[in-house]
Every structure is written in C-alpha cells, then in structure tokens.
C-alpha cells in the first residue's frame, strides 16, 4: 500500500441507509484525500445515488459517520454540505434548462449589492464571473444569457464543475458525469476531473464505467447491491481485476469481446493500456 501521508479530507465510516424494508447501503467505508480522486463504482442499483445523497446532505444515514478533516460531520441539509465545502455535480446537473447560464451558475448563492430594500442580484458581477470561470476551464461561452438547455452535455457538465470550484468546494462529488456523453465529450469531462484534482480538490467520481474511472482514479470503492466489494488504492488493483469485480466473470468476458469488436471499444482499450 502506497498511500500518501496527508490526512484524509473526508472519511466515510460504516455508512448504512435503509428505505422501508430495502437496504440501500450497508457498511460502506472509504476515504477521500485532497488532490486525489476516489472512484465509486457500481452497476445500476448498487447504491451509488444513495451514497451521493448522503454525502451531499439530501439523505441522512441511519448508521455510520462522516469525518471532515478528522472532525465529525453532520449534514442535515444540502445547504450544510455546501457550507462544509462539499459540492455535488448531479447526473441531471441540478440546472434549470430554461434559465440563463449566469443565473444557473449563481443559483442559490446569488451575489448581491446594495442594502435593505435595495439589496439586489448583482447581475453584472454574475455574468462577468461566469464568463471568466468558464474561460478558466477552457470554454468560451461568449453569451452568458444563453439558456443552459441550449448547451451540449459536456458544456453543461463543465458549467456545473466550474460552479462547484468557484464556490470554494474542497470536495467535488461527480455523479455519473460521463454516462450520458459520447466518447469524445467523456474525455473532455475526464480532463476536468484531472484539472479539479490538480487544483487540490478532493474528488469523488461516481461511475459504472471502470474504463473511465481507472485512468483518473487514485482509490476505488466498489459497490454491489448496497454493499462494499472492497475499497482499494490504485496500486492494489489492476484494471482487469477492477472490471472483473464489477461485472463478474462471464459477463466480463462477453463485454471484452464486444469491446474488441467495436472501434469505440478498441479506442477505449487503447486509452487504458
């Protein structure tokens, strides 16, 4: 094990959550360090969404504890998670398609100017900041007044990530950011993940695709039907083993065959090796 010496940014200890008689999560533990990417892998129904919602304050765990910088952390609301520096980029991106980019960017945390009854939304600052932050991510949006709905999937992803980074997130949770995207767009998003990591953020990257996770991940938590299949450092687990654990023997072989047959799969396999 070659874990770095830094203390974990977030430690998740033995989390459990049930909904009625359904055990959605049970006995989940992992750590996230600053400047590292922890990948949470699992197929549909593995409990990934529940896991995120606990970390972002939408659900409260029935059991288990969270520690931020070694201190016990309780997240009663999404707001509390944001205030603690935990920002979640949801699968559906938590954006309002009909609203302008700048309005979305600052939604819920609008900058204001003036005082008393004259306190108002500082739209100039909001527009300027949005444009600048997006430029920093390498995207020129030009017109911040454009509705978010007119952006492509990758662009929306980048707005969401830029927003999280701007609002001082120390821990970025990305919920299946690549699942709805084409190969090229997915590659762009993986680049943003690396960028966020290099800025010193802790990143939790949720995905069902080990081929997206492996190139950027430092740590891998595998979920299956609400339980942990293991929590590994990158050095402890090679990609084939990760894929095998995720898919299970026979299914994996079929997947490998399918990947070999398609050009996209070839590309992917080449990317990985």
């Amino acid at each position, binding site marked *: 094990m070659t874990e770095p010496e830094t203390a974990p940014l977030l430690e998740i200890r033995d989390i459990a959550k049930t909904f009625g008689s359904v055990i959605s999560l049970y006995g989940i533990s992992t750590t996230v360090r600053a400047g590292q990417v922890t990948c949470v892998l699992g197929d549909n129904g593995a409990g990934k969404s529940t896991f995120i919602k606990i970390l*972002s304050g*939408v659900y409260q765990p029935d059991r288990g504890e969270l520690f931020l910088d070694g201190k016990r952390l309780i997240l009663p*609301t*999404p*707001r509390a998670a*944001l205030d603690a520096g935990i920002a*979640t980029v*949801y699968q*559906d*991106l*938590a*954006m*309002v*398609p*009909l*609203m302008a980019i700048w*309005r979305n960017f*600052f*939604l*819920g*945390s*609008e900058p*204001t100017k003036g005082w008393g009854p004259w*306190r*108002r*939304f500082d*739209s100039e600052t909001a527009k300027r900041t949005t444009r600048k932050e997006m*430029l920093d991510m*390498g*995207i*020129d*949006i*030009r*017109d911040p*007044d*454009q*509705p978010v*709905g*007119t*952006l*492509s*999937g990758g*662009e929306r992803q980048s707005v969401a990530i830029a927003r999280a980074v701007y609002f001082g997130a120390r821990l970025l949770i990305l919920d299946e950011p690549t699942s*709805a*995207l*084409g190969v090229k*767009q997915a590659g762009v998003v993986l680049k943003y993940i690396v960028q966020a990591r290099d800025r010193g953020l802790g990143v939790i990257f949720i995905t069902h695709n080990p081929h997206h996770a492996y190139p950027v991940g430092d740590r891998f938590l595998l979920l299956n039907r609400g339980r942990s299949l293991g929590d590994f450092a990158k050095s402890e687990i090679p990609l084939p083993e990760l894929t095998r654990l995720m898919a299970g023997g026979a299914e994996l072989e079929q997947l490998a065959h399918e990947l070999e047959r398609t050009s996209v799969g070839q590309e992917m396999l080449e990317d990985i090796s």
Partner: protein
Amino acid sequence: MAATAIGADERVARVGPLRRLLVKPELGSLIGAVVVFIFFASLSDVFRSAQGIANWLDPASTLGIMAVAVALLMIGGHFDLSAGVQTGTAGLASGLLTTYYGLDTWLALALSLAICLAIGFVNGYLVMRTGLPSFIITLGTFLMLQGLNLGITKLVTNTVQVNNFDKVAGYQILRRVLASTVTIAGAPFEIAILWWILVTIGGSYLLLRTRFGNWIFAVGGERNASTYVGVPVRRTTITLFMLTSTAAWFVGNTQITRLTSIQAQAGFGQELIYIVAAVIGGCLLTGGFGSAIGASVGALIFGMTSQGIVYAGWDADWFKFFLGAMLLLAVLANQVVRRYAEQTRR
C-alpha cells in the same frame, strides 16, 4: 462576434441576435399589442382619442395588477384559481367589517389583508405539503371561497351585496388613493393605472433583479435542481401565493372603493382572465419562463380588445372569440420558444 482563441466552440457562436430576441418572453405580446392597437385605432377615432385611451386603460389596470402577480406565480410553477374570488373576499371583508360591524376602516383593511394572506398561505402550504397540483388545491379553495362569499354575505346582509361603503369614515382618503382620476389631455385617467404601472415595474424588478426572482424562475423551471443547490423552494412558493393574495386584496378594495358597493359574486371567473393575460404575456403553463411586463401587456391587449370592439360598433359577444384566438396564438408561440430554448445537444 469576434472569435475567441481559447477553446472556442464553433457551435456556441451560432447564437445570433434573432435567437436572443426570440427567448425574450414578452416579445410576442408586445407585437400583439401593437397589432391590436393599430387595428382598432384604424377602425375608430374614439379609440385613439384621450378619452378612448383612458377608457381602455381602465379595465386593463386592475386586471394588469392581478396578471403581474399571477404571472410571477406561474413562472414559479403554479396556478391560483382562487385569485379571482379572493378579490371578492377582500372587498366583501372590508365592506362587511366596516358597514355592518362598525370596525375602524383601517383596521378592517388590515383584517381583510390578513384574511387574504391567510388564504394565500393555506394555498401555498397545501400545495407544498401534499405535492398535489396547485390547479386542484386552488380549485378547492376557489369553490370554498365562492360559497363563503355568498353564504356569509347573505347571512349578514340578507342580500347578495354589500353597500354604503362610501359612508364609512376615511372613505375620502381611500377614494383618493384607490379610485380618484387624473385629468390628462381633457380625459379622466383612473389612478389605478398608475398603481398598475408601479406594480409592473416592481414585479419586473423583483423577478429580474433580485435573488428571490432568480428563485422564482428556478422553482418553476426545475424544482429538484433548486432544492439541490439550496434554494428555499417551500418558502419561495408560499411567498408567491401570498403575493397573489396581496394583489387580490388591493384590487378587491379598489373595486369596492370605486363602486361604493360590491357583489357577493365579485371576481368570479376573473381567475381565468388573469391566467390568459399571463400566458399572452409569454408565461409558460409549465412554469420557469415568463415576464411581468408581458403579463401587463397581456392585460393591455385585454383592455384594448374589450373596449375596441365596442368602439368599432361590433357586438360585444365577439370579444371572447378574439380573446380565445389570441390565447391560442400565444400558447403556440410560447411552445415554439420553449422548444427552442430547451433543445439539447449532446
């Protein structure tokens, strides 16, 4: 537009001025208003005289005040079918409390406001609490209020109206604030027109220039997303219902002050007209998109059409036909805009 070097995405650049104009919600209604004005002005001299303008601005004004509030609520994703009868409730409450129970006028007005705010709160609270469509919840309160308005009025007065509001203390002050006229170019303009303009400016400012306005768009556009980023969805929605009730209070008291009496059925049926004005003004029925100015222009179109038909010497029955046709046109136009704004590229 100059090309920018860093990561320029050639597809983003295609947003031309036309597209930006198209997503302005009030554009359609402004064009409509100009067309309607030219149409009736060419048919009738009176329509474009100062007296004519004062005449068609009058019905537009009280409707416009309600339409702005209803538009904000619609942008927030909800309907209030009880908004119309609430104007009746407000006027009846003020009237009954003063003329039959001898309460001080200002106290009666405050109580009337409290009643309206309570109705608005209940509407909003029930919608948030049950998760049922506001259409059903407010249909319920609409019917209940309609019954209460009639029932209580009959019980207290043994008639279906409240009279003699001009006999109460302070009526002259009220009249000056709510129902006086200002003579411009020889024609008397109702003071309500001024209030209407102020409400439109205030509503537009609230919507476009404040945090609360941003939240209105958000809760109406995508409720879950709003929750995730920390927007107080429940508070925003309940506040919107209470704002609508406040507008109903204002309009209801304007009406009783103006006429010095009020019918127990006052406001009944108006709720749909408010929604029509808001939709003509560019509000989407599904929420998340619309404009306060647009709703006001919708009310203006209503005023011009209702009076214009009379000036043109046509049977007033045609009015509803025109209104319906305009509503259909507006909805179709809105549909196009929405598809345009929401179209997604992967």
